[in-house]
């Protein structure tokens, strides 16, 4: 499964942030996005996940091949760990949660209400959803935030397994996850130019009236 991004231009809050972003990721490859705060890493990741409209350019394949792990863990505190995972398993049509529980070392916590978990445990629960989704392309926004050293190594191993199975990963992270075949894309050269800003201020249709 390849991920191809061609000549992408993006805006956030009506301001163009990125333009001319192009890259191609083949199966088993991972790409790390780098750039200072506000460079547009999250905007780019959300656009590729299909949560944000693009000003120009193409992304292939569509959002139905992509699993997105955002800053927020999307964990319901009132439900137990197993209930949280069972819900997402049935949304994605995945048969069981045992493998995800095991790989993320969550078996011991399965009947614990998620509100009693630590930040790192919640993070692992949020990342376990990637395994349940069964999707080949992982989009990860700072996946290791609040993970301890051991869990970071664990997640690095899961990521390596995912890539070895022919998956693709695109992530914004500052931590070395020990991945073998990794490329780094610095977003600084793609900062929006005057042309990009012109695109952003052009009428973008009915939706913009509400923004």
């Amino acid at each position, binding site marked *: 499964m390849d991920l191809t991004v061609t000549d992408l231009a993006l805006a956030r809050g009506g301001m163009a942030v990125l333009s001319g972003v192009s890259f191609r990721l083949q199966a088993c490859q991972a790409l790390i996005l780098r750039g200072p705060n506000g460079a547009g890493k999250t905007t780019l990741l959300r656009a590729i996940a299909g*949560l944000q409209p693009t000003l120009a350019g193409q992304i292939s394949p569509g959002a139905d091949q992509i*699993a997105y792990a*955002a800053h*927020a863990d999307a964990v*319901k505190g009132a*439900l137990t760990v197993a209930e949280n995972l069972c819900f997402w398993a049935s*949304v994605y049509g995945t048969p069981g949660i045992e493998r995800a529980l095991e790989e993320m070392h969550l078996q011991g916590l399965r009947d614990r209400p998620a509100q009693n978990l630590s930040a790192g445990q919640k993070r692992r629960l949020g990342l376990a959803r990637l395994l349940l*989704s069964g999707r080949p392309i992982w989009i990860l926004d700072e996946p290791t935030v609040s993970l301890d050293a051991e869990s970071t190594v664990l997640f690095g191993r899961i990521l390596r397994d995912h890539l070895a199975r022919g998956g693709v990963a695109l992530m914004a992270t500052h931590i070395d996850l020990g991945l073998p075949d990794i490329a780094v894309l610095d977003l600084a050269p793609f900062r929006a130019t005057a042309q990009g800003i012109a695109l952003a201020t052009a009428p973008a249709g009915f939706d913009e009236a509400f923004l």
Partner: protein
Amino acid sequence: MIALLTRDLRLATRAGGGFGLSLAFFLILVTLVPFGVGPEASRLTLIAPGILWVGALLASLLSLDRIFALDFEDGTLDQLATAPVPLEAVATMKALAHWLTTGLPLALIAPVLGILLHLPSAAMPWLTVSLLVGTPALSVIGAFGAGLTVGLKRGGLLLSLLVLPLYVPTLIFGAEVVRRGAEGTATATPLAFLAAITLASLAGLPYATAAAIRVNLR
């Protein structure tokens, strides 16, 4: 989709889910009215249909902003938008869960509270029927309002202002069914209008709700 419904019902009934809030509000409103307007049976009988329907409407309004706001805050809505389920179905299931936790219990408890307001016993079945037919429209319209205001901090005020005018037709026909039931005259016409409003909102609004959520997620 059933998974989403059961999850929402589970969340609503667990601690902090706000399941009892609407019912408690309805109960308080109806018990306070006789203190406010006086205990004369004739006067209460006259205003009972309107009070019961206004109470049900406000009780349903009370929990609207929870429909999408909680899922938006913890990132669940982002995940649902990228999951292999149509957002229209998510909107429908959310409205259904809201109805099952507010509209349905309200409809079932309303006859008991009707006694407090001296509602004639002939009107009791009509009260339940009109609430059963009418409150789904309140939940679907409310889900639409919640979808429109989902990204806003403290969107509750705007939500009420948006949704209340849309609630008026349901209120008029719903209260009319109960009033006619109390008088013993034919209730078919307002009941048909009430059902029509519910069916039309059910058919159309989930699409509008999904579109509103997509705009707000950007």
